[in-house]
């Protein structure tokens, strides 16, 4: 697809954050992105700068340095590394298409590996909470049309999901809530974030105090007295006021971020938050929703769940899916030094994982499939440059609330580059040959 001359492409889906706005207008001239309208500043940077810093051919490591090589050679080396590995890990998957995840899951079966997606270091604990309690939620349009109370807890969308508040919540125009004045917005956080500045109320909580505060809120919602005067730095009266606000709204929602999943207690912060919202439904309509980070992290969970039954951290080393986050999760597998090879797709673990974990990655053969150089490509044995989903390649993705949409390319990729899906399928084909040969 070669686009000549200038044209404006409507309804383009932004492949940056989990809000996946789908109303971008992208101006393309002579195959280059010129401008993006109605997107946030991050999506503008993404679309305009997508083409800086790229490898254009596969690379393999020879005597400590990465050297250019042929696509076929890179495929063959990758397949050998993975087929010979006795406990490989396949990691990433949330900044690429569902089709890539599907190919990755089949590859994990054939090589007997652990396959985990970046959920593991964002909302993994959210899923662990859901396993214990369940979840009362909805698609984002429900919030837009009905919510009169919007709470952001441990989440700072102004920075992480810039258009979330405007498109889906406090600042959006809905059928039954016409404007901002029809809604109350509350922010609970350890610091007065830029999002807090948009709120009607800001509640500052001590770091690592979320579980206690949620506990106290559940008590107040039940109508029980609080014996302690101050909880997690918040006075009891303030907690009772918030509880009353929640009970008396017609339709409330809590959007929570990694401020809840990454702090002390992790999944139990979510467990208790889910319980609070469940309790509230005996009094009024109340929902809760995680603020998923990457544009297709939700898709990585969905595909993994329908193929294996489990949303992430799936161990296929014994030929069938097994699941126990804390054991089968990427950080733990690497920190224990258990795995002997890694495939990294559309992710940069060395920039996201604790140093001890990255140190083990640096010790084992790593194959990286990514459009851009990164800290992880620096320590890789094989590097596949690839096309960018949503800009140069199409593919299915899932929005943070699980709505499936399909991205389309707006420009053509640099000549000779393959997509994640093509690369993974070629590795898979080669692996099958090696395994059936054995």
């Amino acid at each position, binding site marked *: 697809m070669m686009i000549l001359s200038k044209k404006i492409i*409507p*309804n383009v*889906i932004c492949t940056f954050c989990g809000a996946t706005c*789908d*109303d971008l207008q992208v101006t393309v001239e002579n195959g280059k992105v010129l401008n993006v309208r109605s997107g946030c500043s991050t999506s503008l940077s993404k679309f305009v700068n997508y083409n800086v810093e790229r490898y254009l051919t596969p690379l393999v490591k020879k005597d400590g340095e990465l050297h250019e090589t042929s696509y076929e050679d890179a495929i063959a080396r990758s397949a050998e590394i993975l087929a010979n590995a006795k406990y490989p890990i396949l990691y990433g998957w949330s900044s690429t298409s*569902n089709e890539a995840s599907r190919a990755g899951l*089949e590859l994990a*079966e*054939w090589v007997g590996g652990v396959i985990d997606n970046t959920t593991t270091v964002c909302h993994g604990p959210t*899923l662990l909470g*859901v*396993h*214990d*309690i*369940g*979840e*009362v*939620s*909805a*698609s*984002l*349009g*429900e919030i*837009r*049309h*009905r919510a009169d109370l919007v709470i952001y807890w441990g989440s700072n969308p102004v920075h992480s999901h810039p258009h979330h508040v405007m*498109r*889906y919540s406090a600042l959006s125009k809905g*059928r*039954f809530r016409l404007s901002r004045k029809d809604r109350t917005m509350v922010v609970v956080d350890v610091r007065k974030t830029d999002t807090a500045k948009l709120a009607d109320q800001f509640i500052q909580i001590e770091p690592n105090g979320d579980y206690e505060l949620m506990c106290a809120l559940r008590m107040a919602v039940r109508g029980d007295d609080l014996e302690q005067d101050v909880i997690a730095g918040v006075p009891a009266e303030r907690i009772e006021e918030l509880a009353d606000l929640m009970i008396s709204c*017609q*339709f409330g929602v809590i959007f929570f971020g990694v401020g809840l999943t990454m702090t002390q207690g992790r999944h139990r912060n979510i467990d208790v938050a889910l319980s609070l919202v*469940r309790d509230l*439904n005996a009094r*009024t*309509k109340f*929902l809760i929703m995680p603020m998923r980070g990457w544009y297709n992290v939700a898709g990585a*969970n*969905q*595909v993994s*769940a*329908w*193929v*294996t*039954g*489990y*949303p992430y951290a799936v161990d*296929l080393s014994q*030929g*069938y*899916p097994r*699941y126990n986050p804390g054991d089968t999760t990427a950080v733990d597998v690497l920190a224990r030094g258990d795995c002997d090879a890694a495939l990294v797709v559309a992710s940069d673990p060395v920039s996201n994982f604790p140093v001890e974990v990255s140190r083990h990655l640096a010790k084992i053969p790593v194959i990286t499939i990514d459009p851009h150089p990164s800290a992880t490509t620096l320590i890789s044995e094989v590097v596949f440059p690839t096309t960018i989903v949503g800009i140069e390649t199409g593919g*299915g993705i*899932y929005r943070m609330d*699980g*709505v*499936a*949409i*399909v991205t389309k390319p707006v420009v053509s990729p640099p000549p000779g580059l393959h997509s994640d899906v093509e690369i993974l399928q070629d590795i898979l084909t080669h692996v099958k040959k090696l395994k*059936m040969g054995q």
Partner: protein
Amino acid sequence: MTELLIRNGFVYDPLNGIEGEKADISIRDGKVAESVGAGATVIDATGMMVMPGGVDIHSHIAGSKVNAGRILRPEDHEKDVERHTPITRAGTGHSIPSTFTTGYRYARLGYTTVFEPATPLLKTRHTHDELNDTPIVDKGCFPLFGNDWHSMEYLQQGRIEECAAYIAWMLRATKGYAIKLVNPGGVEAWKRGRYLVGLEDRVPNFDITPREIVRGICKANQLLHLPHTIHVHTNDLAKIGNYQTTIDTMDSVRGLGGDNKPVIHITHVQFTGRTGSAWHNVGSGAPEIADYVNKHDHVTVDMGQIVFMDTTTMTADGGFQYMLYQLSGNKWMNFDVEVETGAGIVPYRYRRNNYVNAIQWGIGLELALLIKDPWRVYMTTDHPNGGDFTKYPKIISWLMSRKAREKSIARINSIARNKLDLPDIDREYTFSEIAVVTRAGTAKALGLKQKGHLGVGADADVAVYNLNPTKIDPSRDYRLVRKALKKAAFTVKDGRIVVKNGEIVETPMGRTYWVDSQVSEGLMGKVESEMRRTFTEYYTVQMDNYAMDDSELGRSSRVSVKAEV
């Protein structure tokens, strides 16, 4: 050109009036043929039973709600796994099997066609994503209407033709096969935390009643000439004595059909077949419902039979699931979908000694046994709501054997036992009748002319069971029946052997059926431009990103019909 000959089996093909006679089935290029050449591959079915491949009219196997159930319940998968082989993909069960596992397990039962009966329009792309990973079986899905703002508004304004055109647009956009109604109007109410009761309550903000919605969409269904009738999960599932609502719903569309042909399918009737005013006096409304069905031929139903096991309940009826959470205290998932519908999930264990569960078990079987015409009652568990689909052989044995029923009746809650009519019912299904309620009848109800029978030209989907109907008496040897039906000796899909002795030997990709109803360009143009105006107001997704492309289906099979408007 591939040829297959299934030789010398006892064939049950009710649509062609064949009731267990010895016959050969010739297959060429995936279709049943007059005859085949000497070079044909031969399946020796001597002493075995041959039936068309099973056709499941109602089984929740794919989509956002099913996957939410999988994510909710790792403990459900842990003990029930499928291993990776060079032919098959790994996966897990139990009550909510992963997609590949679902395809394999249906094929092992001799089923070759399955319909996912409840998919939110906005999330039907997700349903297809999963159906694309569900191998072997042909499939399709029923998108949810009746709580969607567009339908309710068109009907409230009495613009029935526009409503029909809108539905046609949606079926095309979502690649849907039939219209599903779940608690019409009631889910919109639940999304504001309220319940509707009966057919006459008005839906908040939309000034319309469930009765008006059911009648209106039933008419639209006919205007569009859709192959299946409207497929209805009635109102009041959460109400204790709800059998009357079921009968009222059937009656609300009486006379719309004319030529005494079915115009409504009431699904999993068991769940809306309860009498009583409180949980302690719940009873079976099956006799009343069966009586209505026996007297009126505009209705078909399926059982929604329960099996005593730990399973996962899931419906678009969010309000009902909340009630079930309150009753059970189990974990609870709710997911409302903007503009359209809702969903809820609660794990639940059906217990023999639980009074209400025992009554529910009785209602399902009473319905199947009291409704005289097997062509209008079909076997389902509303998988996984009443139990997972691998339990079908058990249910068949209950239908075919009074002795099997007595064994189970002896073990259920004694108060329930004394309250049910079931112990006094003598009827035992024949193999032909089983073939009707599991294949021929469902295929007919779905308007799949090439399925559910083995006449020349039919799709070569065949199940061969290691069971000799001339040697065994199902009434006495029901255990043998159960055993044989659990693992087909052979399952043939489009003329290819996919199962041998209960093991998967090949995994072709099945078709996905969807209906394209052609309405006049003028009408469609008008409705489309109206939708363009409302769409961005209603949805958080652009209209152009909402509609699915044919190429998104693994193996698209478009069913084109000419609408009346």
